[in-house]
């Protein structure tokens, strides 16, 4: 196959590209320029798409011996990922921009462009596995569960999955680093990326305040008693404990957590940890990675990229899904994605719209 290897400049995508070459594919390396004004150097594990990253990707492509190009996706990324991130926060939700990027950029804009140009697939360094036939592959967790990234891929349609290759899913991360070293890829010891790539400072609240402005509002308890003032409800996330800025201790002296964010009244509701417990999740904006199971199903739900898989019962109804958890979960925000698994197969995902 003719494939595009999306190369971030990190170790995973470099090894994935090398493995695709070895598997006999004709590989072209592509680095996505996602920032209109990239920083010169990356600082630590934060940020991405620096000029240094693009040079690292280019060097890896040279070592592997494949052509390499930079594709400017900055405008698409700004419109589909960054703006969406800001507007979701403004609406009181907690979006996951990595899912959004996979959905809109890597496996839509890049894949569509590649297919138009005569390529067959996109290969990435995500830790996930494809099984089954080439015509109808299914998406599964990586063997390295600690590194598994199937959660952020759960927005892919069967058609997109059919045009994807994830060559790293069968190998633990540590071995990928060793393999990179064996292959002479100088990115072998580059630190993993963390956090949100377009907020290199790591200060998500400050970054959002810069864009949405300061908007003072009350912090209240469950009875509506005012406990303090915040600078913008959008800078809080459900389950957050630190940085609430409440001087007055709770009656029982226990820590308070953000329970609810009400964007219209710009109110943050805080309370005890138990009050965060939820047992039912309602989701919409379904993305099915394979056939939609009918009736009531047993499986696992996961609500964070590296969160636990919680045993659950789920049922698809119309455009939505209802997930009933076997054991309660603490702190789930609307806007997050709930990903459903059948053993280690990704069934699909939904955006959380309500929790009970």
């Amino acid at each position: 196959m003719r494939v595009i290897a999306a190369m971030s400049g990190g170790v995973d995508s470099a090894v994935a590209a090398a493995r695709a070459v070895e598997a006999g594919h004709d590989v072209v390396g592509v680095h996505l320029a996602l920032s209109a004004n990239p920083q010169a150097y990356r600082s630590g594990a934060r940020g991405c798409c620096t000029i240094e990253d693009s040079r690292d990707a280019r060097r890896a492509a040279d070592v592997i011996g494949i052509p390499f190009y930079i594709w400017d996706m900055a405008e698409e990324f700004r419109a589909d990922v960054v703006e969406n991130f800001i507007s979701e926060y403004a609406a009181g939700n907690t979006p996951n921009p990595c899912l959004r990027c996979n959905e809109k950029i890597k496996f839509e804009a890049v894949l569509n462009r590649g297919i138009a140009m005569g390529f067959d697939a996109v290969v990435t360094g995500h830790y996930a596995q494809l099984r089954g036939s080439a015509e109808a592959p299914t998406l599964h967790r990586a063997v390295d569960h600690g590194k598994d990234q199937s959660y952020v891929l759960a927005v892919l349609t069967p058609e997109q999955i059919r045009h994807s290759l994830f060559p790293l899913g069968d190998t633990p991360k540590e071995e990928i680093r060793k393999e990179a070293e064996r292959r002479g890829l100088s990115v072998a010891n580059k630190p993993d990326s963390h956090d949100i790539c377009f907020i290199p400072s790591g200060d998500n609240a400050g970054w959002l305040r810069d864009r949405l402005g300061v908007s003072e509002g009350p912090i209240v308890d469950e009875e509506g008693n005012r406990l303090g003032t915040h600078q913008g409800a959008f800078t809080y996330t459900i389950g957050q404990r630190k940085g609430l800025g409440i001087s007055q201790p709770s009656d029982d002296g226990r820590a308070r957590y953000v329970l609810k964010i009400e964007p219209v009244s710009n109110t943050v509701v805080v309370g005890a940890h138990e009050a965060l417990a939820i047992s039912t999740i309602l989701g919409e904006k379904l993305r099915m990675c394979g056939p939609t199971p009918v009736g009531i199903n047993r499986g696992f739900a996961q609500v964070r990229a590296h969160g636990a898989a919680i045993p659950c019962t789920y049922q698809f109804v119309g455009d939505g899904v209802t997930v009933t958890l076997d054991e309660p979960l603490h702190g789930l925000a609307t806007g997050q994605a709930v990903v459903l698994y059948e053993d280690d197969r990704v069934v699909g995902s939904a955006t959380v719209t309500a929790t009970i």
Partner: protein
Amino acid sequence: MWCRKLRQESWRANLDVAMSTYLDHAATTPMSDAARRAMIDELGNLGNPSSLHASGRRSRKVVEEAREAIATAVGATPGEIVLTGSGTEANNLAIKGLYWKRIQEEPKNKRIISSSIEHHAVMDPIQWLVDHEGAEVTWISVNDRARLNVEELVAEIERDPQVALVSIMFANNEVGTLQPLDRVIEVAHKYGIPVHTDAVQAFGKVPLSFKELDVDAMTISGHKIGGPLGIGALIVKKSVNLTPVLHGGGQERDIRSGTLDTPAIRALGVAATEAAEQLSERALRMVELRRELTARVLAEVPDARANGDELALPGIAHFTFAGAEGDALLLLLDAQGIESSTGSACSAGVPRPSHVLLAMGMSEVDARASLRFSLGFSSTSQDVDALVSVIGGVVERARKAGQVSKR
């Protein structure tokens, strides 16, 4: 198999240039055999041209003979040749050196006049002077064929003749348009303003004499004319004073310090001589090939548009393939073994629409849909055949890619 086969071919291309179709001679062009032999021979010789002993004298003799050859080739005297490490360095020396000297003489001479289609090696040093040294700049516009609106420049000088320098390229590097330098020089000199020209693309392609042009400083580069990479020269009238950019051992009349690169200089001398002697023959062949290329590409892709002017460098063919994306065209042609360029600078590694095309009044979308094919003295009809055999399919695919893109 597609790319793998190509990789093998491009690897072999290192041994045999004929294996790939190289249509990017404006970026760099192969070294001539004679220049390569001269350079390899000289790499085996010991000597710093500044040393006083026998080895130094031998090395200095090589440098001075090359300087004489370069001077003859560009129509200057040997004493006017200041050797540099690149065309970019020569441009920086001309612009910063002239600006600082002029400011020193008369602090009111703060304004630099240049064109909106200069190479970044001219634009960026000017912008740097504006950002850091209090200079002012006036960028003169061009018409839709990238030809300087020279009367606008004349009016600017007449409006306020307190100008540090004028820098206008001899010919544009992206679309090839020759610039009305005679008129620029005539008017600037009327007001005693020094003129610099970046002749990196023009030297060796069109007849050019430093003396007859009567320009004050002119940049040339080795690797665009069949000489080596890493060598260039600023040709400066002896009456023109420059403040040095590089300070050190006082080489090159104290204007450009740094140990002289004898092997590269010797090879540049050889290449410059060849370029001057074979100019008409090479230019005629390139013009013919360019005409053939343009006609046949337009026959394959009838709605493509050829950009530029009648008065242009012989080897540059520049097209807009509306609806396609330049970087998709580039990738697809590269995959077929055809090497071309979007001609635009990759600022920060991200392909940006060319400032030259935008200055010509092209929309950002059309600017992104443009591609440059540039011929050199080693180009052949087979190169054109190879391009023509794939361009139709490539443009079709790149247009499909353009359709799925949101831009």
